[in-house]
């Protein structure tokens, strides 16, 4: 009982701090926070299918891109506000996600092959968008700047903090949804499927149905993140919001933070971005004091090493490590008590 209250207070406090951050934090830090939250949001959406359902997809960039392009095209060609366009984009993404999921899960495609199919899918979609002029092709699409009081209705703000609040809200939202899902029947079944699919099936759990559900949720919500990006950067291009490179970026944070844990993706994002900045500072420092060419790509090497170590030693990420330690701690306490 006491635990639950203190946890809630802790999170309320944390939430409050995040809420008022724009008032105290300068443009640079706010920019970083927005990127961190965005990446964390994307990772959390992916986590539903990748972490909880255990189906690793390296193609979720597709859905982000579909969301971004749908809302952008609807806005620039038809004047439809991206606030509505983004849901249409999400629905489209969900449809594609269900389609791919259906093909794979109904056909009992092995996990590894599902992964390869998602990789191929994201590249195909990216290449298609690059070759069709209507979608802006490789030139990309610029979102026309709207000034004046109606801009917010069109998902445009000339300050940064509204975007910050939006992504904060979205992140809180997906965490809430994941939280609910974790504790619901769906979460329970997904855990069973992830643990041993054949066993779960033999117990009557329709693996395909629940995996499809996870796929639908993750693709729908991740597409909303695509529209956010489009409106924030005002420019999209196939290789920025789709494709393998981007899809891999989405996956890094959840893996590092903890696959299938609630806060894993956010934690991962909070570690990754500052790590990048840190390695950049390090590179600058080395460049100036030792006249070295700089350690170009140092943060990427760090990611790679982190990935290897994570999968090898901490398949449940950092949070998993904490949970294991907590478990061991609790066991020790028990022993001591006895």
């Amino acid at each position, binding site marked *: 009982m006491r635990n639950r209250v203190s946890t809630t207070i802790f999170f309320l406090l944390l939430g409050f701090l995040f809420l008022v951050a724009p008032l105290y934090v*300068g*443009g*640079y830090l706010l*920019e*970083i926070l927005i*990127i961190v939250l965005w990446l964390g949001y994307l990772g959390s959406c992916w986590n539903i299918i990748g972490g909880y359902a255990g189906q690793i997809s390296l193609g979720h960039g597709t859905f982000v891109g579909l969301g971004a392009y749908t809302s952008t095209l609807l806005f620039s060609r038809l004047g439809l506000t991206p606030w509505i366009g983004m849901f249409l984009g999400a629905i489209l993404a969900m449809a594609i996600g269900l389609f791919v999921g259906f093909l794979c899960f109904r056909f009992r495609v092995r996990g590894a092959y599902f992964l390869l199919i998602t990789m191929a899918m994201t590249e195909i979609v990216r*290449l298609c968008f*690059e*070759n069709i002029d209507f979608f802006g*092709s*490789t*030139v*990309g699409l*610029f979102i026309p*700047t709207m*000034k004046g009081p109606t801009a917010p209705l069109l998902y445009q703000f*000339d*300050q*940064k903090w509204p975007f910050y609040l939006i992504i904060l809200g979205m992140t809180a939202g997906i965490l809430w949804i994941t939280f609910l899902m974790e504790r619901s029947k769906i979460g329970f079944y997904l855990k069973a499927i992830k643990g041993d699919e054949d066993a779960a099936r033999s117990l009557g759990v329709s693996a395909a149905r629940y995996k499809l559900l996870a796929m639908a949720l993750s693709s729908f919500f991740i597409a909303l993140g695509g529209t956010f990006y489009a409106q924030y*950067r*005002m*420019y999209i*291009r196939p290789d*920025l919001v789709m494709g393998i490179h981007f899809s891999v970026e989405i996956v890094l944070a959840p893996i590092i933070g903890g696959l299938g844990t609630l806060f894993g993706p956010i934690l991962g994002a909070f570690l990754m971005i500052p790590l990048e*900045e840190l390695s*950049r500072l390090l590179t600058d420092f080395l460049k100036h004091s030792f006249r070295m060419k700089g350690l*170009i*790509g140092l943060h990427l090497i760090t990611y790679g090493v982190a990935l290897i170590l994570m999968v090898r030693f901490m398949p449940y990420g950092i949070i998993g490590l904490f949970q294991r330690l907590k478990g061991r701690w609790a066991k020790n306490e028990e022993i001591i008590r006895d």
Partner: protein
Amino acid sequence: MRDRKISRRTFLKSAGTVAAGVGLTGFPAILRGAPKEILIGAVHPLTGLVAEAGQMSVWGLELAVEHVNKAGGIKSMGGAKLKLLVEDSESKNEVGAIAAEKLIRKEIVCLTGAFQSGVTMAISKVSDRYKMPLVVDVATADAITQQGFQYTFRVFPTISSMVRTGIQGIMEVTDKAGRPIKTAVVIHISEFTAKASFDIFYPMCDKVGAPWKILKKITYPEQTMSVASEVSEAKVLKPDALFINCRMRDAIMLVQEMYKQKFDVDGVFGIVGSGLADPSFHKQGKLSEYVFNACPWHDEVKPLALKVAKEYEARFKKPYNMNGSHSYDTILVIADALERAGTGDKEALRKALVATKLENKTSIGGPIKFDEKGDNIGAGAALVQIQEERSKCVFPHEFALAKAVYPAPKWEKRG
């Protein structure tokens, strides 16, 4: 031979002069604050595929800063010296935006960058939010100056002007050689800089009255493993000329394939092909010889341009090309504006930039003057040709020394 001993009167006189001099120059400085450093921020890709080009821009910026400082700095601000702060955009929009934020936090008075249009768009949004003047040294997308931002200016020519000059140059060169182009094939990468260039190229050909007929438009992905079939496709049509736009890697593959398949044309013309400006492409010897490129360039005739080009090449061991020269000129523009504004205040600087009319510069074109969108109406472009492993300007003539070689000798004659 002067008298060694200085008479008291002379001493007093000279002391007085010195004191007066100090007073005259130093006093206003004290009023405005002692000569300090004026910080200018630059965001360029120093890592990634175009790292070499980004670096060449940064060298241009650094060299200009040195020259301005050596000439006395910004005299209207008490001889304050310029200082350049450079951040790597890593060719990524996100990183560029963060870099811009970082620099603005360090209290720069002006921003420049960023080579890639996407990154430039990203930093322009940042700089506009802070009402920070941004003078784009190198970036082509027309959209950058179409956002209605009052604080964004661009020294680099737009794609439209580069394409137009290119077509005019091609027509002139081929007319002069008595062999106007009748048929041509277009080959380019499907990536956006190439596509944007050709989207402008086709209608511009009609507008300017170009005589050639485009037989086929061939595109391929930048990351391709081979361009063999693309070249075969073009060869079969037997065109007089090729219009291309490639990155360096596939440009090299392209000329190699043409050699291997013994595909001869009268001329290969790059249309704003940044890959063709790459030093590695020039080193392909007989393969890249005689290839043209329609692109911005530096003046090869005027003394200032020649002097700077020489120093640049001696110091950095790379040719002084379009990137270096426009970056160099951007610093001149900023310094000139600071000089007229007399202060680092952003609003005053912006007003001064609007009123710019800079004639003494190193890039091709008329005096640098910005229109209401921020584009440089004096910006020019040229047609250059690779001769003896160097790109030389062959059109327009007032900036060129070299003469074009057209038609290009056949492969078997090149040895």
